[in-house]
């Protein structure tokens, strides 16, 4: 059906990338831009002009290792694509000058290449996917992110986009759902409900028209998996929606996107336009007799709209408040009609499942948790960014192998975003599956992983998460509205040094009530950060309450800074940054800190090369803390 279209696209794409001129790829997704990719892009253009060289510049999405951004790849004619990391404008000039004038690929500066083994031997550059952060990963959903040009339809089509849709048309609706059942894909929004069952329910539901909604309202702070997918490979999501729409017999699809992701919205709209122009959307798609339209609707900034019934309310022009289920949206959803709602990542996975088959998908992950899942790994690990791993991998592998460990000793990992739980070091060997996460009092969630080390205070983190849930609670049901408030107020009391012994009991009770009695997932899970940290880090709470001490030197009322004389080298770096001139000392001699002037701005701690500035209980100015012992 699409052979002719694909063949033409392949020809055009090859003409663009593999002729006798160099091709420069630069990652300009949101995170790359934050790291300065647009300035680098500008420098590349100028350098090309200065050198008098021609080269094609292609902007690509995010490939995952955000700590390497901005990433620039160069493919010289006939050679493999070579990637360079942390490319500042100056570095870009240097690399381009060497590559384009002398053909020197500067192996010492390269991060990796995308070619085959023989290229490794001839160039002396390692394969990009052998980087420690990338090697343990398995890329299915993100396969094309950062590789293809997300705004160029030829690029997507020639790398296999819509092959899954072609196969779906030959299988027919029942066949598609059977294939999904074989694959065992489970909802990637976090709940883990088998996707095929949702599709089955939407298919058998009576009522017309039916709708397909893609939940791209990625509200978790600290998570950006969906953004990266939408910015890097929007056609994968469209294809997934088309397959879903065909399977359930829908006529219209809506992508509910977060307005805070303007680039993702722009690229998605562009992709929709391209699909219409090629006859992949609209009437009689690929002569199959199937009609389907997709439009984008921007969310307006409410976390709770990630919950499916709240999302529907928002689509209908109401306050985004959840309602009790059943009836499920597959029976009565948007405008009261059967509606299939899946997460962006679920839809993004569907094309691969249909293209390669359910059996193929099952070879990844575990028996009850097949396939791969994307996570955003952030916080205190050495390497941060977007990762994709087969389910069943242990947390330890993620933190230590992919993340490269932490600077200070590892303390905890928060899985599942603000509604998840905080897991301590002795739970690191747990495999990541929907069930194990739930057993530990956390959730899989949509995939935010926040790593904390000894410099993060668990009580403060719990306060932060609960504060977030409190401000995002829609106020519809009492346990959530009042419960988040109780938790927030109590935790604020504790971190400001006014905690009382009975506070822990109060929080425990409120948290359990919320868990049992709230209407939607937000309220039920909002207490997870508190329950889990009370379970695993109770000692820290007690220190805050009884000794009025924050061992991580985060809660400003509960510690004071001190300089360890045995560690201080007298370099003077702290003296320079101190805004209150609270630090004194002779050069090369141990310095002292005047706690009466110190405003705990943290500036000295950040610059100290030997970690000599640590927190001590207020008024003691003596003892070392665990942080101090651990630092060296």
């Amino acid at each position, binding site marked *: 059906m699409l052979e002719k279209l694909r063949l033409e696209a392949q020809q055009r794409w090859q003409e663009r990338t593999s002729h006798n001129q160099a091709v420069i790829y630069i990652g300009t997704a949101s995170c790359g831009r*934050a*790291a300065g990719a647009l300035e680098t892009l500008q420098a590349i253009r100028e350098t090309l002009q200065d050198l008098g060289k021609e080269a094609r510049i292609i902007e690509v999405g995010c490939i995952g290792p955000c700590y390497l951004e901005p990433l620039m790849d160069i493919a010289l004619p006939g050679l493999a694509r070579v990637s360079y990391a942390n490319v500042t404008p100056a570095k870009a000039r240097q690399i381009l000058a060497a590559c384009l004038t002398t053909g020197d690929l500067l192996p010492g500066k390269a991060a990796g290449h995308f070619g085959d083994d023989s290229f490794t031997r001839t160039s002396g550059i390692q394969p990009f996917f052998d980087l420690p952060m990338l090697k343990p990963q398995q890329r299915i959903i993100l396969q094309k992110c950062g590789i293809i040009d997300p705004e160029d339809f030829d690029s997507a089509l020639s790398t296999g986009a819509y092959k899954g849709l072609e196969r779906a048309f030959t299988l027919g609706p029942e066949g598609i759902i059977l294939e999904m059942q074989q694959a065992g894909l489970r909802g990637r929004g976090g709940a883990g409900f088998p996707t095929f069952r949702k599709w089955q329910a939407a298919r058998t539901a009576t009522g017309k028209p039916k709708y397909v909604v893609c939940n791209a309202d990625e509200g978790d702070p600290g*998570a950006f998996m969906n953004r990266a997918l939408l910015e890097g490979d929007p056609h994968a999501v469209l294809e997934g929606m088309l397959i879903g729409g065909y399977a359930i017999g829908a006529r219209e699809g809506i992508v509910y996107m977060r307005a805070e992701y303007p680039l993702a919205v722009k690229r998605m709209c562009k992709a929709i336009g391209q699909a219409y122009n090629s006859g992949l959307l609209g009437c009689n798609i690929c002569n199959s007799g199937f009609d389907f339209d997709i439009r984008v609707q921007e969310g307006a900034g*409410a976390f709770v709209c990630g919950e499916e019934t709240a999302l529907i309310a928002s689509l209908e022009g109401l306050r985004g408040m959840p309602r009790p289920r059943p009836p499920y949206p597959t029976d009565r959803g948007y405008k009261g009609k059967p509606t299939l709602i899946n997460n962006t990542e679920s839809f993004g996975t569907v094309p691969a499942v249909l293209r390669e088959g359910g059996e193929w998908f099952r070879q990844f992950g575990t028996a009850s948790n097949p396939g791969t899942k994307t996570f955003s790994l952030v916080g205190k690990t050495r390497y941060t960014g977007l990762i994709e791993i087969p389910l069943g991998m242990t947390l330890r592998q993620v933190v230590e192998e992919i993340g490269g460990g932490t600077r200070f000793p590892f303390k905890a990992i928060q899985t599942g975003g603000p509604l998840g739980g905080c897991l301590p070091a002795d739970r690191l060997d747990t495999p990541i599956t929907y069930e194990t996460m739930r057993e530990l009092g956390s959730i899989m969630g949509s995939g935010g992983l926040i790593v904390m080390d000894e410099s993060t205070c668990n009580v403060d983190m719990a306060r932060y998460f609960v504060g977030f849930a409190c401000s995002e609670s829609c106020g519809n049901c009492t346990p959530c509205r009042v419960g988040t408030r109780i938790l927030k107020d109590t935790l604020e009391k504790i971190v400001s040094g006014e905690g009382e012994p009975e506070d822990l009991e109060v929080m425990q009770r409120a948290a359990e009530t919320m868990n049992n009695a709230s209407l939607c997932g937000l309220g039920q899970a909002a207490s997870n950060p508190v329950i889990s940290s009370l379970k695993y880090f109770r000692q820290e709470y007690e220190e805050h309450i009884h000794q009025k001490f924050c061992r991580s030197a985060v809660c400003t009322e509960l510690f004071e800074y001190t300089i360890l004389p045995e560690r201080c080298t007298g370099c003077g770096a702290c003296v320079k940054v101190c805004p209150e001139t609270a630090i004194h000392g002779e050069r090369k001699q141990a310095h002292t800190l005047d706690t009466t002037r110190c405003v705990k701005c943290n500036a000295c701690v950040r610059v100290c090369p030997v970690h000599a500035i640590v927190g001590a209980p207020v008024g003691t100015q003596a003892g070392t803390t665990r942080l101090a012992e651990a630092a060296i």
Partner: protein
Amino acid sequence: MTVERLIQSRDEFWAAGFTGDLAELIPLLQYYQETHGYISPEGVEAIAGFLGISEARVYTVASFYAQFRFQKPGKNHVFVCLGTACHVQGGVDLANEIHEHLHIRNGETTPDGQFDFKEVACLGCCAQAAVVEVNGKIYAKMNREKLRKVLKEHQHA
């Protein structure tokens, strides 16, 4: 609002492709904010008139969502990210800096109309935390000093 003004805004909404379906309420609010800068009382009236619903109903929805502002925005738009990663890297410090430096809080505009400021849940650039967005450009790995410099640049520009 006079009838003429209502007709005028109705024509404007039609021209922008709206049909008057109730489900268009949020897109209408977004459109109005984009073209007028904020949701003014006149805007609420125009939208309510267009959809045939009460103004209270429009406010109910508009006030629920973080995106909508009811104050005239400043010349420069400052967003401080308070997502998890930014929180860990000192995002609250940055919000405090804005408060101390510009004397405005979340959702407010400086009296001279130079800056408006909003705290946001997450800008999705977590690996570059802490981040601040000024006029659509994202500044990575910020601290108080860097933020002061960025604000100064925009104040003079």
